[in-house]
Every structure is written in C-alpha cells, then in structure tokens.
C-alpha cells in the first residue's frame, strides 16, 4: 500500500559542477603533452572528428592569477588552493574523482552559473574596440523589436493558436524567440538585463556574465564550457522557421472572435442543501455562476481562478468550494453573498473536490500530480497529500462520511502491452489515510463516482478501451466501449456496458443518484444524452451472474444495457457534471458546450434548460470544440476525440492502428496541448499538418464515417490548436533552479565527460531544439524495437508470455532496421507518461536507463548519477 506525503521530485540543489570541468582535460593534456601547438591540436581534433568543429571547444590558456581573485565562492577558493599546492596530475585525478561522484563539495551552484547581462553591457565594450558593428546592426534590426511585436493585436491570436493562455509578453513559449533568457528565467538575469530589449546578443552567445568577468578568455579556466558561445546557424533556425500558428494569423487571417472569450462552458455544479441555489463552475469564463432555482435565473457570477472545474458545498450550505485547474487552487466562496473567503494552493491540476460531513476537511483530486490533498478548512492549510492512482479525477463520500472513493482516469503503469488496470482509491475520511486500492481491470477513464444512498456500494463511469486489439472495425465495440463500474461493499468490482450494438453511449462523464437510491443518471458527453439507470435492476443483474460471467462476459457484452437502462434521453450539447437535488427531486446537469443547465425530473421524463448567458452565436472555434467532443463523427457513436484526449491531453494508452500492420507499430497517445507548432504529426511524422492528421486518414482508420468537410476540419483544427498548455509545475516562477540550469547545460553540451566531442546527431539539442524542443523532423535514434520493424518480423525474437526485456530486443537483433520517428515536443513531460513512440518507457528515466544502451538517443552513458538527475530535473521543467 502506498501512502504518504507527496515530495518534490526534483533533484538535490547542491550538485557539483566538476564533471563538466573535467570534460576537456584529456584533450588539453594531449595538446600540451605532445608539444603540438595548441592551434594545431585544435585543427587535428577537427580533422579527426568532423563533428567536433561545432563543439566550440578551445585549448584553454592558464588563467592569470588576477582572474582567480575575481572568482568568488568556496568552490573556486578550494580549487585555487588545490591548484597552488598540488601537482597538475594530482589535481586532474581529484577532478576525475569528483566527476565520478566520489567527492561532494558544498557550494552554491548559482554562483558558478553565468547570468544574463543585457545588450547594454555587451555594447559597453564592443562599441569601443572596433567590434561595434554587431551591436549597431542589432539596434537597427528586427531582433530589437521582437519583444514589442508581442504587444501587437495579432499576437493574441497567435498565442491562442499556440495553446498559450497568458498574455504573450508573459508567456515563456513566446518569449523564448521574442526575447532573451526566457527559458532560464528572471532569476538568472542581472540588473542590467531587460527582457524588453528583445532578442539580444546573449540569445545566440549565451549568458555573458562570466565573459564579462573574464573578457580575455573564451572558456572557463577549469572547464571546456566556453565563457561565451559562438553563434551558429542552428541557433538562428531554432526560431527562424515558419510556424503554423504564425502563418494562420499573419497569412490566412485567423482571428479570435469576441465571443470566443465570452463562452461559459459549465462543467460541474452543486446544489445547496435547501434546494434554492445552484452553483456552477464555468470553465471557460473562470467564474462561478449562481442560479436561483425557483426562478430559473442566473443571479450572480463570481470571478475565481483559472479554469474552475470541481465544485461542492459544505454540509451547512454556507461555503462553496471550487477547484481551479490551471491556478492549482481551491477557492472558498460565501454561498449567500458570493464573497471570496479564501483561496489556497492545493496541488497540480485539481479536479474533484469534496468536503467531509463535519465540514472540517476538504479533499481535492490533483490530476496533475496523482495525489489527493487534504485541507484543514479551519487552518486553511494542506495538511496531507495522499498518493492516488494515475490522474485522480473525482471523489465521492459515503453517507456515513467514513469512506471516500477517488477515481483515476489513466491506468497505472504496468507491463508493456498488457491490458490497462486502473485504480479506485479508497480513503478513510476520518483519518485521511489511504485505506484500500481497488484494481479495475481492463478499464480506463474512470471519472464520475457516486455512492448509492443508504448503502456502501458505489457506481462509477468508465471506458473499456480495446487498445491491444488492432483498430480494424467499429462494429461490436472493437475500439472503445463505455460503461459503469460497481464497487460493492465487500470490495468486489463489477463492470457492465452502457453501449448497445451500433449505438454506443460515448464518453460517460459523471453520475448522480437519486436520494432514494433507485435511479442513477449518467451523462454521455459524446452523445448528448442522459442514461437513466434502474439501480436495483443493475445490482440484481450483476449479482445473478456467475463468477465467469461477471469477470469475462458482462464487462464485454453489448446486450445487457437494456436490462437496467430505462431511458436514454437527449439533452443539450455535451452534458458533463450532474447533481441531484433531493428537495425538488430533480437532476441538474451542466451542458458544457451549450452554455446551459438542464433539469430532469425524478421520473426521468421532462427536460428543461436554464441558459447561463453565453453568446448566442456559435463561432468557428466553438464549432470545432463541439466536433472535438462529439461522438457523432464515429460509426455507432462509439467515441469522440475527447475519449482519448481528456482535457486535450492523453489517456495513457498505446494503440495498434491498422495502417502500419496488425500487431505491429504500437503507438503511444500524444497530448494535444500546444500541438499546432510541433508539426509534422504522427509518430512517423507522416502528416505535415493537423488538417491532414485529422482529415481523411482519421476517417479511414478510426471513425470510419465520412471525413470532415473542409469547413469542419478548419474549425476542428483551430480548436485543437487552442487547447491550452498547462503551466509547468516543476518550473518556479522566477525560472530554472540551479539543478535545472545545470541540467540544461548537460542538455546543451557538446562534449562528453571524457572530453570527446559528441557527434552532432547525438546531442540533445540537435533534435530537441527551439522553444518547443523539437526540430520537427524524423530521426533515427535507435529506439525502434523489433515489432516496429517492417515485415517480416523475425520469429525467434518472440516471447510467448511477454515481450521480456524490450531493451535487449532492440540491440540483440542486429537485423533490426532503423526506423525514424518524429521528434516529439518536450512539453510538460511529467504529465505525459508513458514515453517513447510506443509507450514502452514508463518513466522519463527509463528512456535512457533501459532504452538508450548504444547512446544514439543522446549521449547519456557517461553521465554521473547527479548529472543524470540534473538532466531529468531540467526536462521536467520544460
């Protein structure tokens, strides 16, 4: 059982710089030991290793004593004293030992890392020494205006198509090309540096503080790391490449419509115990709407944090709690006055929220960090973070207030190409500890959950995705089936389907149960329907089944829904959150893409709607959003785009798509957040544009209905492009931590720890370049496995039970042809597991510790543990 307090997973902040310092020692010794002039040694090095001419390595002159005096800090002083006392060879050995983690030095790493000084500081020297031309050119070039370009009106539309939610002048993604030093962050800027100066000298040459301190040298006296970088064409092309988001706006004239900012998008709602008020989380509007139920009118809107999602009230009905996904907070609002009482950071990407019966504790499901936060309401403090499954989504509290269940949308990491197993986490609400973890076999996308009143049995919605079966047909539920899970009091879990043959109930999202426990209502977000379930009939149906039937047949049978689904009734577009009002015996539901609330009477007959005041006009972007969430594009309405991309993200599964061979080429699902500028698409980079990716190919191999019309496709692509990037919670507001900064230097390094030049193609930055960390090309990095090879697959590499050690398969088979893959963007990596094209790597670390044995996916074999941790820390910050 896993339980405990969540800890920051970043590496230690006191790591050593020495391994990098040791990099060029062998090369230097060779040059000096052979008596060859240093320049000749450099030429020799270039001749023998053509790639090395890009490494910007230098033979380093002995540092003058005055320079040493300028270098502050204990580590420098220690090195200086050693250098004075020890023979050179002994010093070299010491450094080598340090590089192998045998020594640890206490030192503030920030002191040894260069800072950005700003163009004025550069000009102060270069303007007076005959090298003023670059500065002059810069001042008259558009580089100097690049920052101000972000203030133009078009920039907002470009940012929207890049998935950027903040103003462009504050977006790291925009600033990485339109300014300097944005990735490192303000923490690494000297007082003389101003981001508003646009693309400055240091954008190409790197932060210049060490160069300013040691103007006579080109490289650190103790390191191969140059004090100032030589500009390269690659640096230019990282930004100077046509980006689809810019083209769409500047060439095709795309603009956000005013209404796009006015939609409400209600996603969840809560009813006050007296049945007089309804509180609705408006995701798009960043507000909470208050509806007077007797009058059926909106009486107030309360601004809250970014992207409110979960909402609930305390048992007395005095306080409304709402989670805000993008601001990672829970807000407490006075239910009567609408005043905000307090707000509190709770965890990454909080979704569900629930209050204990005594109102003293608040639980939030933090989808972005796989935890549940426990908030002491009186102290307004997170007192615990409990480890949940993967992507905790919704919570439900039992009648007695003792038992809390948490659903998780993604399956737990497991054996490669094994059926998904998701988790229901049970928490003892009184002690706030994890009590049990239930495995839900073969299921994913566990979302809404509710207890049957008066019992300890709970119902939850789920997908049963057939991701291990090739997507070859849609009849008979061959791709995704949609259903209900039943968690009995004794811990047994049953699953049944809400689908019928060729009439699926796509995207079951939430569930609410009537006060008498007789009817359960399930929202079908993809089919715009509510299913009314006879709870007693459902329980009787599953309990009458044999063990084999309950484990094998019922979860996979399309003919059982009629036994317990009494009605499927049409409701407004994209129903999501549900709440049952016991006072009026009425179900309320949030129609997210209709900007309305619908009410259904207890008999499940009549439906009436309450508009929430969104625009009447449906903009192209909104049309695209509706298409994205609609299963009408699929034969039998079996699934929508959202079925695999909840919140525009991933469902954590690997799929077998027909086009590239049955059983072969499994491909991991990729996030859609900020995807437009990462073209080409598909893991083989075969689709140059999003329109091609979502066009006929999608229809032929996935939905099997007609492709989107060109107008629909345009709208859909524009909507997908606007799916928001989530803030990276591993990145501090003031920029990279020292560990992350060191990781960045490893990421950008050009020589390995032994001083050998790293071939360009094996450098991280060769492929993962630019703001999005992709060169948008297809490369061979030997991550292909035998089942990625073209037919025929060698039979002797096949293990009857499992795939065995995938890493070995890669390299034992000398006949495995190289397969190029699209270079993926590195965006919020901690939230995109599993990794690699086929999802074989369960963690970031496994990419290199299991699947990079020949160092073709970056030169990482020589990294020390701490360097490796720094690299991982940096990657998590992207």
């Amino acid at each position, binding site marked *: 059982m896993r339980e405990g307090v969540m800890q920051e997973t970043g590496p230690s902040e006191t790591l050593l710089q020495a391994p990098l310092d040791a990099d060029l020692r062998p090369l230097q010794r060779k040059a000096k030991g052979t008596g060859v002039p240093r320049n000749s040694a450099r030429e020799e090095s270039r001749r023998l290793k053509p790639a090395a001419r890009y490494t910007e390595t230098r033979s380093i002159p002995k540092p003058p004593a005055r320079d040493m005096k300028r270098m502050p800090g204990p580590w420098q002083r220690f090195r200086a004293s050693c250098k004075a006392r020890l023979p050179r060879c002994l010093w070299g050995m010491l450094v080598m030992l340090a590089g192998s983690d045998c020594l640890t030095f206490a030192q503030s790493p920030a002191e040894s890392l260069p800072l950005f000084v700003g163009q004025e500081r550069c000009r102060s020297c270069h303007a007076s020494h005959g090298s003023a031309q670059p500065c002059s050119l810069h001042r008259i070039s558009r580089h100097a205006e690049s920052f101000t370009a972000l203030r133009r009106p078009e920039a907002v539309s470009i940012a929207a198509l890049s998935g950027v939610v903040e103003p462009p002048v504050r977006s790291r993604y925009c600033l990485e090309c339109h300014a300097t030093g944005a990735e490192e962050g303000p923490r690494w800027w000297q007082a003389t540096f101003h981001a508003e100066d646009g693309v400055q000298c240091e954008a190409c040459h790197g932060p210049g503080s060490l160069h300013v301190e040691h103007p006579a040298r080109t490289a650190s006296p103790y390191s191969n790391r140059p004090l100032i970088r030589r500009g390269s064409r690659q640096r230019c092309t990282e930004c100077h490449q046509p980006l689809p988001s810019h083209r769409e706006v500047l060439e095709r004239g795309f603009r956000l419509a005013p209404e796009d900012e006015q939609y409400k998008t209600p996603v969840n709602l809560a009813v006050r115990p007296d049945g007089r008020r309804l509180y609705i989380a408006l995701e798009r509007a960043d507000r909470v709407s208050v509806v007077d139920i007797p009058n059926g009118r909106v009486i107030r809107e309360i601004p809250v944090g970014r992207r409110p999602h979960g909402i609930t009230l305390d048992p007395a009905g005095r306080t409304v709690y709402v989670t805000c996904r993008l601001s990672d907070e829970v807000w407490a609002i006075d239910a009567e006055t609408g005043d905000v009482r307090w707000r509190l950071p709770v965890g990454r990407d909080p979704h569900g929220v629930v209050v204990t019966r005594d109102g003293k504790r608040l639980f939030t499901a933090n989808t972005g960090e796989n935890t549940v936060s426990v908030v002491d309401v009186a102290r307004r403090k997170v007192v615990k973070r409990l480890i949940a499954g993967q992507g905790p989504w919704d919570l439900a509290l039992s009648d007695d207030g003792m038992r809390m269940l948490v659903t998780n949308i993604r399956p737990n990491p497991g054996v490669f190409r094994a059926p998904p197993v998701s988790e229901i986490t049970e928490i003892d609400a009184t002690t706030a500890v994890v009590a049990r973890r239930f495995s839900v076999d073969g299921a994913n996308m566990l979302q809404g959950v509710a207890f049957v009143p008066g019992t300890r049995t709970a119902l939850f919605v789920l997908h049963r995705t057939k991701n291990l*079966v*090739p997507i070859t*047909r849609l009849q*008979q*539920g061959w791709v995704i*089936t949609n259903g209900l899970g039943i968690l009995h009091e004794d811990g047994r879990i049953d699953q049944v389907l809400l689908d019928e043959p060729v009439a699926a109930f796509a995207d079951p999202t939430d569930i609410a149960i009537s006060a008498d426990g007789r009817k359960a209502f399930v929202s079908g977000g993809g089919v715009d329907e509510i299913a009314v379930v006879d709870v007693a009939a459902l329980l009787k149906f599953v309990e009458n089944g044999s063990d084999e039937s309950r484990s094998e047949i019922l979860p996979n049978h399309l*003919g059982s829904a009629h036994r317990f689904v009494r009605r499927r009734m049409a409701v407004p577009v994209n129903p999501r959150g549900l709440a049952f009002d016991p006072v009026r015996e009425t179900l309320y539901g949030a129609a997210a893409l209709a900007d309305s609330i619908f009410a259904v009477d207890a008999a499940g007959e009549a439906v009436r709607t309450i508009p929430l005041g969104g625009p009447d006009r449906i903009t192209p972007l909104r049309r695209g959003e509706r298409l994205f969430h609609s299963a009408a594009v699929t034969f039998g309405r079996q699934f929508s785009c959202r079925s695999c991309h909840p919140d525009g993200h991933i469902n954590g599964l690997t799929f077998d798509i027909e086009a590239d061979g049955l*059983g072969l080429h499994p491909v991991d699902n990729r996030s859609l957040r900020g995807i437009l500028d990462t073209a080409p698409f598909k893991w083989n980079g075969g689709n140059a544009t999003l329109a091609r990716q979502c066009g006929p190919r999608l229809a032929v191999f996935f939905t099997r209905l007609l492709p989107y019309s060109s107008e629909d496709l345009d709208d859909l692509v524009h909507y997908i492009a606007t799916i928001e990037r989530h803030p990276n919670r591993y990145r501090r507001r003031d920029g990279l931590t020292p560990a992350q900064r060191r990781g960045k230097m490893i990421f950008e390094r050009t020589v390995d720890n032994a001083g050998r030049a790293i071939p360009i193609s094996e450098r991280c930055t060769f492929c993962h370049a630019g703001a999005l960390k992709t060169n948008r090309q297809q490369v061979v990095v030997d991550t292909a496995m035998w089942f990625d090879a073209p037919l025929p697959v060698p039979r002797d590499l096949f293990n009857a039970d499992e795939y065995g050690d995938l890493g070995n398969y890669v390299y034992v088979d000398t006949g495995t042809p190289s397969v190029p893959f699209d270079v993926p963007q590195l965006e919020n990596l901690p939230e995109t597991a599993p990794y690699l094209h086929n999802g074989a790597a369960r963690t970031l670390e496994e990419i290199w510790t299991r699947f990079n044995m020949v160092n073709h996916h970056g030169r990482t074999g020589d990294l020390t543990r701490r360097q490796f941790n720094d690299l991982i820390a940096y990657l998590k910050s992207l």
Partner: protein
Amino acid sequence: MPEVPSVIFLQIPVETSDVEAGATDDSSSRKGPFPGARIVQWGPGAADKVATLTEGFAAVGRFDLSFDGRKILFAGRRRDESYSAILEMDIDRRTARRVTREPRRYREAVYLSPIYRFDEDRPHRLIAFTADAEPFGVPVLFTCRLDGSDVRPITHTPSAVRSPYLLSDGRIVFSLMAGGPGGASPSAVEALYTVFADGADVFPFAAPHAPPARRSMTTELPDGTVVYVESRDPDPLDGGRLVTVRRVRSLSTRRVVPGTTEGFYHSPSGFDDRTILVSYRASGAESYGIHLLDLESGRRTLLFDDPRYDDLFARVRRPRTPPAGRSTNVRSDDQPAYLYCLDVRITRDGADAAHPPSRARRVRILTAVPTLAVSKKNTAEQQERTGFASAPDPNDHGARGVALAEAPIYEDGSFYLQVPAAVPLRVETIGENGEVLQRMRSWFWVMPGESRGCIGCHEDRERTPPDRHVLALRNPPFVVPPLSSVVRRPAK
C-alpha cells in the same frame, strides 16, 4: 385516417405474377424486373387514378426514392431494348437516364450515402444494385457511382443476394440465401445480413440461424425499428408476415407484428413513427393492395387497390435524411486481405464434450467453387498435393467447398491469416487428430485491403472483443494460397 401525401408504388399485372410464379427461374419472379409492370404515382385526392411514371418500359422492378424525394432508381427494360439497366428518373419531368452500361441481368437498386476511399480525392455518391454474376450465376450486390462508373461487387458468396436496403447508420441490409441458387425451396433459410458500402464487415443482422423461412423487404422507421417480411407459406411474390427488430440489437429483439400472421404482407415502408405503408393480400385474394398498418395493434386501413395489379413497394414521396457516409481503406483488387481471430475458444455453442473448442490446433480455410467446376480428378489431385480434402457441404446446392490451407492456432487460441480477397471463405477448427471441431455455417468474404477481426468461433454476436494482444499478432500472418494454386479448372 391520417392525411396521406403522394405515394409512389409498383404495379405488377396479376397475370404476370402468376406466370412468373410458375417459372423455373426463381430469381426472375422475386427480384424483377417484372414484365408489364409499371411505377406509378398516386395522390390522395386522385381517387383510383394513378399517373404512370414508366411509360415505354417493357419491364420494371423495385425502385428506391432519392434522399430529396425527386428521383427514383430502378431496374428496367425499355420496350425497344433487349436488356435491362439501372435507370434514374426525375419524377416530375418523367425523364429517365441510364446509369449502368454493361449488359447484365439487373434486379434491384438503392441509393447509398457517399463513400470516401483512401486512394481518391473526395467522397463519391454511390448506388447499390443486384445483378446476376459469375461464377455462381446468382444475384450479387454491386456498387457504382451515380454516373455508372467504378462498378464493384461487394458480396462474394455462392448464395443469392437480394432486397438491399440502406439503414440509417449507413449499412446495407440484404437477404442472403443460405442454400445457394436452389434456395427457393420451402426448406431454404434466407437471413438478413449487413455490409458496408465498401463490401467490408459482413455481419448477420437478423435470423441467421432461424427456422427455414425467407426474409426480405426491409425498412426502417424513424425510431430505429426495422420491419421485414418473413415468408413461410408459398406466395409468388414472397409475401408473408411482418417481423420487427430494433436496429441496434437486431439479433435479439425479434417480434412478430400482431395480426400479420394471416394473409400475405409485402414491401413495408415507413409512414410515421408507428405506422407503415404495406401491401396486403388476404389468403385466396387475387392481388395486393396498399394499406396503412399500425404496428402496435396490427390494425389495417386500405389506401389503394387496383385488382388488375399487385400494388407493391409503396413509398411516401418526401425527402429524408441521408444516412452517414463511409470511409474505407478497401482499395483495389491487388491489396491483400487479412483475417485474424482473437480466441477460437470463445463460443456460444453448447459444450460438446467430444469436441471442445479448447482442442483446436489448426484452422482450415475453405473457399467455394461452382459445383461443376470441381471434378473428381481435381479433388483427387488437390488431396494428393495438399493433403486437404474438398469438403462437400450438403447445404450448398450450387457450390462446394475446397480447402485452401490449414493454419496454426496459437496457444491462446488466436490465428492470423493473409487470405485471398473477395472470394467466399469458410473456416473450420481442427483438433489434434484432424477432427473438425467447429464449422462455419455460412460463407463470408474479406475485401482487398480489409483486415477482418473475429472474436471467436460462433461467439455471442453482442460480445465485444477481450482486450488482449494475442500471440498470433506477434507473428507474421499465415499466407493462405488462392484457389488457383490449389485447384486447376477442368479443361473445356
């Protein structure tokens, strides 16, 4: 009586029906075109007067109304022509244009929704029609574009196909004789199957293993109820009782419409949610007349009857929503076809202690050849060369099975084959000692480029596949040779 808008129907002279009923060629009597028949339009205020749409035609068959309600599509033969064609007529202008060009024996035609093929630049609107075709000489379902180009057969079975109808989900439902060309006998089983417009994913729709009867003339109501005619008693035009199923669970929701077991009902079509237009002839009566029928109560109301004609296939003239189109990767004929099964042990058949499916070790793949094409010499030669025996099937009157290959079944019950495309196929599971454990009862086919997956053998048709990465799919497919490499045709 509800107000009745304009209705279009087919009138077949009673004498012609009787003559055709006695014909030895069964297909002409049931599938048309019918000599002397005509398509007419009848308005509610016109009393017994009808307007003939097909002046100048010697024979016409069942028609289909276009989605906009302005045109009809039918098989017909003009008086001055010697062979029939599929024609499309503008109802108001009374002008007909020929759609098909090749000389065939055309039977029936229906409009389809557009189809998008991966190797084409845009979707194309299609029609489907039945016409006699080789090698089995039975009606086969074809598709072509509205201009008659790109004709493709989409059914590949030795049994006769007839009565196609486009369901609201884009599938084509059709009647398939289980007994081949001789299936008109009273003991024949004719069931309903569905197929997509590209010929892929043929699947039973209703009564695949029901008692002997002929099932045809399907129609769907707005609420998803599908009505068809089940004919057990002899009737020259295949009239019978009415049966309903729900489109979404057609295999499990069969219901006989009350009051329709007496007399003969024919060619139902939707009128409103619970009422249909249907032709009815009382037992012993001479001709069919058009009635309104309440599906709940079985109450009939006569709308029109001309005793000189059988008034059939009545359709209300009004626009309707086109069903969803189809995208497909079924391409040209040179693409391979694949067939895989997840677990042959998954079956709904009762446990047979002597032949449990768990004993299956190999799978035998058979194809159908016309009976005359297989000589004893060839069978002996084939057996000598391949070790496989031709498997005669008592249910097939015009075809027999020829074993193409035996492929391995993996430990988890899976198999994976590359099979000849667009030919009749049948699969048998074979035990350790060569005994046949299970045998498919009907023929199916896999289209070029199609990858057809099966869950098990005779599995519950409402069951979804288990989520397993099966062993067979970790290996290359077993290549099943085409018929030409197994059996030589007899010299003429």
